[in-house]
């Protein structure tokens, strides 16, 4: 899949990005101030339906390349659905269909002739509950590369080692790399899942509430890891923990009941949000 990178010049972001919201005569200050950024993932009027229920409502959103973007919002607002739409995991749900455009690097991934397998190679995913395969640690990380490439034993070992180093897990498991992965602690398993996703060298890493099932110490380790991965990968992280979003992300999107309410630089969104709904959510008035 050869892709052309498009560079979007930011115009009136507030008016364009928040869909369904009518701004009349108030002059909108552009969020990014003439900052250029590459949109790695771009959606235009994108909706996801479960049978008749519209879980994601005409979202227009641009996720910048090489940065960490957080999607926050109360439970059931459609953030996981939007995330899973990016690597087409929603295809697994019977009765789920989409409308609108979702482009990665300028290519609409919901076009009819798209090879989903190679899409999922470029977009990796880490799930809420760590789900390593009941195989050895080595086998877990090597699973992805073995699927797509023909590699010699040494090459495979190198890839596994690099992925585990990148996921900050190598030191802890290098002596027991052939032991069953289910013997690791929760935090280690989650880092193993991250290593497994990194092993196929994706461009985008999707994380669906990666630390909600972990203790605070493990959570911290994962957040440090996200910090390290910034720049090398485009990371989109869904979290219901606002403090985590504030700590970890560069940009934040706030969703409510399927609608993208606000999108902006994290610092600005959390200190002076543009929408009242955002402010209510952040201050805890609902959610």
């Amino acid at each position: 899949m050869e892709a052309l990178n498009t560079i979007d010049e930011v115009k009136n972001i507030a008016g364009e990005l928040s869909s369904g919201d009518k701004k009349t005569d108030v002059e909108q200050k552009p969020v990014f101030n003439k900052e250029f950024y590459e949109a790695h993932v771009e959606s235009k009027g994108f909706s996801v339906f479960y049978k008749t229920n519209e879980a994601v409502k005409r979202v227009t959103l641009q996720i910048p390349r090489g940065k960490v973007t957080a999607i926050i919002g109360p439970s059931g607002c459609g953030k996981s659905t939007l995330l899973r739409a990016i690597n087409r995991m929603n295809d697994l749900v019977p009765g789920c269909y989409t409308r609108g455009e979702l482009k990665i690097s300028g290519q609409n991934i919901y076009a009819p002739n798209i090879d989903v397998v190679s899409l999922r190679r470029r977009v990796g995913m880490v799930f809420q509950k760590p789900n390593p395969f009941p195989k050895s640690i080595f086998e877990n990380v090597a699973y992805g590369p073995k699927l797509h490439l023909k590699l010699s034993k040494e090459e495979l070992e190198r890839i596994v080692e690099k992925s585990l180093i990148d996921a900050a897990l190598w030191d802890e498991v290098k002596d027991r790399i052939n032991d069953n992965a289910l013997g690791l602690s929760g935090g280690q398993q989650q880092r193993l899942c991250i290593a497994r996703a990194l092993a196929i060298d994706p461009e985008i890493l999707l994380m669906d509430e990666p630390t909600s099932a972990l203790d605070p110490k493990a959570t911290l380790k994962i957040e440090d890891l996200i910090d390290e991965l910034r720049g090398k990968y485009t990371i989109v992280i869904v979290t219901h923990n606002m403090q985590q979003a504030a700590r970890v992300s560069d940009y934040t999107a706030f969703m409510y009941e399927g609608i993208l309410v606000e999108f902006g630089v994290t610092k600005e969104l959390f200190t002076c949000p543009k929408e009242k709904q955002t402010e209510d959510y952040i201050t805890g008035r609902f959610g």
Partner: protein
Amino acid sequence: MRLQTRKIIDKAFLASAVVAVILMISALIVLLGPILIKGVGAVFFEGTIEHRRLMLEMFERGSAIEIEREKQIAYEAKKPVYDAIKNFEKQLESMDYYTRMKYKKLLKDLNKAICSLLGPFPDAEKRLLMRDQYGQTRWDRVKVKLHNVLFIEKWDYSDPTRSGIRYFEPRQKEFAGTPIEEIFPYIEKNIERMFLPKKTFYWQFFIDKSFDSHFFGGIWAEIAGTFYLTVGAMLFAVPFGIIAAIYLAEYARESRFLSFLRVCISTLAGVPSIIFGLFGLAFFINTLHVSHSKSVLAGSLTLSLMVLPTIIRASEEAIKAVPHTYKEAALSLGAGRWNTIVTVVLPVALPGILTGIVISMGRAAGETAPIIFTAAVSVGKALKFYEVFTHPTPALSWNIYNLATEHEAVDEIRHVQYGLVFALVALVLLLNMAGIILRARFSKKLKG
């Protein structure tokens, strides 16, 4: 509910559970105990010189010198009996017609009993059937035959209201006044020297071929036959069963056709086994002509149809039980559907699939009705591997029935019948244990 009532109900449940377990264990003991004890009698018994002679002549087992020595001792002991009978026969030639007639029948019966017990006369011409070439090989049979020799069976029909009552009269009385009279106490006294019983461990019972309709030898043909049939049935049923289960669990979408399919599979599980046998005969042999007549191939195909529903059901349950998070993870890494199934789902479902396979193997090994029409014969040699496509075979399950009912000398081969039952039960137990161990090992590997 009051606490007292709850406690009583709890105790009652516990008691009934314990009673159920005890009943089950005692049923098992009552069932398996006699099988094991009597079946072991086919392998551990007191064997006579005739047995060792047979082992040497037919299988070349045992030291020839030792057995020759024993043969001499036994011959020395038996000689007076043979001589006495021969002399009396010669004497009889010179007697009058009436005496000769009287003793002719008595002598014939006596000869039959003596030959059955001790073996043929030393210089008589070699008999056709092997069972007539040897005396009794087992000490327990010696005692039975000795009774035959010493006593004549007579029936008393004097009481018209009851059917004939059997009673025994010492044969000695019949021959009163003749030289034969003395051989009876002689035989009784010297019976041990005639047979030299020794504790024998005839483990080769399970690998020897049988001679003369299972009179002598072992049950290897039956064991091999059951083995071929079971393995063949599994070879056909397991691949089809697992693939069908994958389709039902992963690919099929709920529809009328799918429900109908499920009903068909469940019905197949309930069809009587003899119907399977008839179907196998009609379809595989007469229509498809997989073989000219009965064969292991046709039998295996029939058996595989019989165990297919079990395998499909067990595999489908096992595949459905695989947590969908594993599938999600695999798919998110870019695995295709079939790849996910083979590399992630099947390995996790393997313990459940194995259980289904092991249960089916036990069933296939023990079923009789499907193979009656398609594969089983009563007497035969153990098949070589390439013969399974064209030849029928003896099998443990079929021969248990056959040897216990349709054999010409059912009483003589009791030990073989018990041996067959023992072999079948042991085979199924071994298969189940192997399955349990394999399953435990796979489960452990998956749990980490």
